[in-house]
C-alpha cells in the first residue's frame, strides 16, 4: 500500500475512533493546554506506529494501547496545579438538570478521576468506556481475574474520593 493510501486509511480510522484520544487526553490532563499537547502527541505516535498495526486485534484496542502508553510516558508540566483544579471541561449534559448543577457534577467527577494514579486511570478509563474484562486484560496485560479485582478497588476508591470532595473532607 502506498504511503498516501496508508495515510488516508489511518485518517479514516482516526476519524472514526478519535473519541479514544479525547477521552485519554481528558483523563490524563486537567488543563486545556496539556490536553491539546497530549492529543497531538498521541496522534503523532499513532501515525508513527501505524505500520506496526497488524490487524490481528481491533483497531480501537491497538489505539487504546498506544494512547495510554503515550499518556503514561508524558511529562507533567502542571503537576502543582493538579491538586486544586477546576477542569475547564466543556459540558454536554442531560436537559432535566440545571446547567450549573450538571457542570458542577462533571467537574467533580473529573476532579475525583484526576486524583487516581496513572495506572488506575488506565484501567478505569477502559471500564468506563464499556470494554469487557477480556479486552481490558488484552490492553493492560493483567489477567482477567486481576482486572476484576482491580476495577472493584478503583471504583470504591473513586466513590470515596467523590464523597470526600462532595463533603469537603
Amino acid at each position, binding site marked *: 500500500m502506498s504511503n498516501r493510501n496508508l495515510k488516508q486509511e489511518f485518517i*479514516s480510522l482516526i476519524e472514526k475512533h*478519535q473519541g479514544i484520544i479525547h477521552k485519554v487526553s481528558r483523563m490524563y490532563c486537567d488543563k486545556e493546554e496539556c490536553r491539546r*499537547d497530549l492529543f497531538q502527541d498521541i496522534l503523532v505516535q499513532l501515525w508513527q506506529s501505524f505500520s506496526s498495526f497488524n490487524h490481528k486485534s481491533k483497531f480501537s484496542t491497538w489505539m487504546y*494501547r498506544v494512547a495510554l*502508553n503515550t499518556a*503514561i510516558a508524558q*511529562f507533567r508540566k502542571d503537576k502543582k496545579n493538579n491538586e486544586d483544579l477546576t477542569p475547564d471541561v466543556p459540558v454536554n*449534559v442531560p436537559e432535566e438538570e440545571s446547567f450549573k448543577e450538571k457542570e458542577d457534577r462533571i467537574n467533580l467527577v473529573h476532579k475525583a478521576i484526576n486524583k487516581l494514579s496513572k495506572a488506575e486511570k488506565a484501567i478505569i478509563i477502559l471500564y468506563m468506556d464499556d470494554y469487557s474484562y477480556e479486552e481490558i486484560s488484552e490492553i*493492560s496485560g*493483567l489477567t482477567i481475574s486481576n482486572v476484576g479485582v482491580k476495577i472493584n478497588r478503583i471504583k470504591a476508591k473513586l466513590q470515596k474520593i467523590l464523597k470526600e470532595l462532595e463533603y469537603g473532607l
Partner: protein
Amino acid sequence: MDFDEIKKTWKNSFKDDELLNKEEIEAKLKIKSKSNIALGKVKRNYKLELIIGIGMSIYFIIWMLIYISDEYKLLLSLFTFLFFGTLISFTWRNYNKVRKTVISSDQLKPALVKTIKDIERYVNFNTSTFSKYLLLPFAICFGMFIGIFVGVGEEGMNAVMEILENRIIRIVIILVVLSVIFIPFSQYMTKKMYKQHLDELKQCLKEFEEFED
C-alpha cells in the same frame, strides 16, 4: 453518587463538537510540534548534544588550523578530533538506539518497562563514572589547555610547557575546583530533568506489578 452515575456523568462530559473531520486530522499530522513525552525529550537532547559536539569540534579544528603554529597544529587538531570524536560517537551510539523508537503498542506493562529502559540509558550515561570522573574533568582540562594556547599566542609550545611546569599546582587546583562545581551541577541537571519523571514511571510500573499480586 453510585458508580453508574459517575460513568454516565463522565461519558456525558464529551462533546460531539470536539470531534475533528478528516481535513483537521490531516492538518494536525502535519504540525511539527515539540513532543512532551519522555522519549521525545531524550531524542531532542541527544540531537542537541550531537549538534553542539559537531559544531564545537569543527570550530576548534578550524581555529587551530588558522592560529596554531605549523609545528603543533596537526597534533592538536588530531587531539581535538579524537576528543570530540569519542564524545560524539558515544552520543551517536545512544541516540541511534532510540531515534527510531516510537511509543510501543505493546501491553501497558511491557511498554512501560521499555520506556523506563530507554530513559535510564540516557540518565545512566550522564551519571556514569566515565562521564562524571573522566569525561567532564577531561573536557575542563581540554578547555584550560586551549585557553593557555590562546594566551601564549605566537610564543608556541615552549611557552605552554613553561606555564604547565611553573603553574602546575595552580592548574590542578583550578581543575579540582571546577570539577567540584561542575560534576554535581551536571548530575543535578540530569536528575532534575529526568529523575523525578523516571521515579514516577517506576512507581507506575510498581503499581502494575502490585495489580498482579
